[in-house]
């Protein structure tokens, strides 16, 4: 059996014959070249496999830095029989306890930052952020929202039919006054079949026209506006923006180069997923109900709307368990409306409601 040996002291190559002596527990080396130095024998019990190679294997001796022996397949198979711990891993420099300590420290810190520190920082940030910056954030989120709707196949354009806009303005002003908001949020309708509405930073509210088409009455729209005004009053949109940006950054760092510099991408996606906590949603629902009551608007249509949405979600087969979804369960919301809601008049005159239904008859030019 032949081998190619490095003793770990110099880079000299020793071409050797292997003589395995199981009795003594050693493999001795005989130089293949006459009159060459005889390398030290290796104890069989301490021989470890570095890796299998195309020709055979590369071996080392535990505790003997740089000792390497390349052998052919025949010698490898022979030595496998006589080296009891050939496949034992070399001892790691790191004890399990110290590794565990760093794991706990790192992940404890990460979880603490994500779920305790960051939400508080975001909450404070939303309160102290000056109005001018908040409005800039609002303008850029509105743009992002338009881009996303555009990505979904249909470019969403703003609906600007004058009579509809005037009707919507009147309702928004009335609700803002009833809810005690200092300023009336800017409400914009976008031409999109998706049934949804959003509150944005800088006191902006976006209604997708799908929600108007499916509202079955102006009081539902009043309720939805009230809900989004609740988010505005509680600074939720700004808070979510700051929190999600921070989360995207932290998760990006923790995930590292998994996606090759994708932390920016994650952060952007986080920004667009404009979700609030369940507490924030419940608070916004409460704001909507008290605002409707103060304005003397019937809140029962809102409850019926929630139950319709709930049934549709169930029917569409993508039922999201209520704990996982960011919004309260539609059934709970309906029950709350029935419990806390007050009766009243409809939110708009018939003419105003008819005008609002036609608000998308006229669309703003492509680039707002």
């Amino acid at each position, binding site marked *: 059996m032949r081998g190619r040996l490095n003793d770990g002291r110099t880079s000299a190559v020793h071409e050797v014959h292997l003589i395995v002596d199981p009795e003594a527990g050693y493999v001795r080396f005989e130089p293949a070249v006459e009159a060459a130095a005889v390398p030290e024998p290796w104890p069989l019990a301490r021989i470890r496999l570095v890796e299998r190679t195309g020709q055979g294997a590369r071996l080392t001796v535990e505790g003997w830095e740089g000792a390497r022996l390349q052998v052919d397949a025949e010698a490898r198979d022979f030595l496998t029989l006589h080296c009891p711990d050939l496949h034992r891993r070399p001892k790691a420099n790191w004890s399990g306890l110290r590794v565990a300590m760093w794991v706990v420290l790192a992940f404890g810190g990460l979880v603490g930052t994500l779920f305790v520190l960051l939400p508080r920082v975001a909450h404070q940030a939303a309160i*102290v952020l000056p109005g001018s910056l908040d409005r800039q954030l609002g303008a850029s989120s509105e743009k992002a929202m338009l881009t996303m709707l555009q990505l979904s*196949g249909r470019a969403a354009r703003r609906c600007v039919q004058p009579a509809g806009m005037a009707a919507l303005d009147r309702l928004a002003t009335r609700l803002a006054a009833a809810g005690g908001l200092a300023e009336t949020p800017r409400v914009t309708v976008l031409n999109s079949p998706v049934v949804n509405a959003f509150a944005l930073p800088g006191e902006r509210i976006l209604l997708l026209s799908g929600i108007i088409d499916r509202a079955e009455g102006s009081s539902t729209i009043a309720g939805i506006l009230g809900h989004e005004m609740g988010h505005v009053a509680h600074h939720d949109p700004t808070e979510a923006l700051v929190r999600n940006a921070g989360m995207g950054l932290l998760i990006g760092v923790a995930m590292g180069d998994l996606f090759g510099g994708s932390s920016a991408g994650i952060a952007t*996606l986080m920004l667009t997923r404009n979700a609030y906590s369940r507490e924030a949603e419940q608070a916004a629902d409460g704001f909507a109900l008290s605002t409707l009551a103060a304005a003397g608007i019937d809140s029962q249509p809102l409850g019926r709307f929630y139950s319709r949405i709930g049934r549709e979600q169930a029917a569409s087969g993508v039922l999201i368990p209520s704990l996982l979804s960011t919004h309260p369960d539609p059934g709970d919301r309906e029950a709350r409306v029935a419990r806390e809601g007050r009766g009243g008049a409809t939110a708009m005159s018939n003419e105003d409601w008819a005008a609002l239904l036609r608000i998308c008859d006229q669309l703003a030019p492509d680039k707002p």
Partner: protein
Amino acid sequence: MSFAAKSPLAVSWSDPPLPVRFMDRGGLFGLLVKNAFLTFITLGIYRFWARAALRRYWWGSIVIAGDALEYTGTGLELFIGFLMFLAIMLPFGVVYGLTGLLQASNPLAGALLRLVEVLIFFVLIQFVTFRARRYRLSRTMWRGVRASQGGTGGAYLWLVIKWTLLSMITLGLAAPWARLAATRYLMDRTALGDLEARFDGRGRDLLAAWATPYLLFIGSIVGFLVMNIGRLGTPGVLPQGLWLLFIGYIGGGLGILAYFIIELRYTIRHTRFGEIALGSSLAIGGIIGRVVGFCFVAGIVLGIISAIIAGVFASMGLLHPAAPGAGLPLASFISTFVSLIIGLTLVNILRILWIDRAIVRQVCDTLSLSNIDRLDRIGQSTAPVPKAGEGMADAFDIGAF
């Protein structure tokens, strides 16, 4: 001379024997797919072990005088380095976030603090670049002899700061001097066993190679400004000569790529390990052609992925109306995320197979050594061995290999 061809167990190759060769161990594609898959399903935790496995491939494919390099680092070491980074960096992240708050209420103080943070960041990156190199060299072995990087992160950092300032003052013209100064610091303290490296390059030798892209950039911008000087501030008038900027950027980009290749070849030629002088006959054209081709293919792959994402948005947005205020449906959020990851992973695999391997192969196969007999008489290194991996360097993806 105990040369490879004489030994049945050395890695064999064709005549005439080259001292350094890239001899593909094989299985790179399978390794990359396995790495990507395991990294994906472990949410990124496997990436440290993936990186160590990939390095074992690269090191093991570089054969010097009949013996391959060996990478002795482990994924665990990289993982621990990363954990240390995470534990140390989190407070910094919180301070960074709080600065944003301060900036909102007090713009001046906030901006000053942010500037300090950016500087700290720059400093940290230089520091970890040094540490990462020291770690990698300490895990590099050839014929049982370990490589090492001497010097300190602090001294290297100071040198880089000095030269960065000088580069900024000269508007980038001093960049070759700055880069070679860093190379000199690192190389003069690099050793394989007791064989110490020396670098004797000078910045002025690279001035011509650097001036080409530099003048293309500056020239196109100046030309563009001159052409539009009368039109500045006039609304509604399109600027003239956008083609000039276009040519300047494309030409400058290619020029910088060529510069990096020339600098690499120059660095090899002006490095010696003891009595062993290194030489290189690396050609520029082949590498540039490959990189340009790769950019086209990567663009196409990413374009297809974007189309898929757009399709997902389209179906999700229309099929599942969400409750008011719910934002994007979770399902479309996740599928977007997944297709983004798959696309970037694909491009990454393509880059390693097509660009990285070709460059390493060309660099190795064009490398020559003088006095190869000296290779048999290198003593073992006595330099200290760092324990943990490069942590932060991994987080910022410094050092491609």
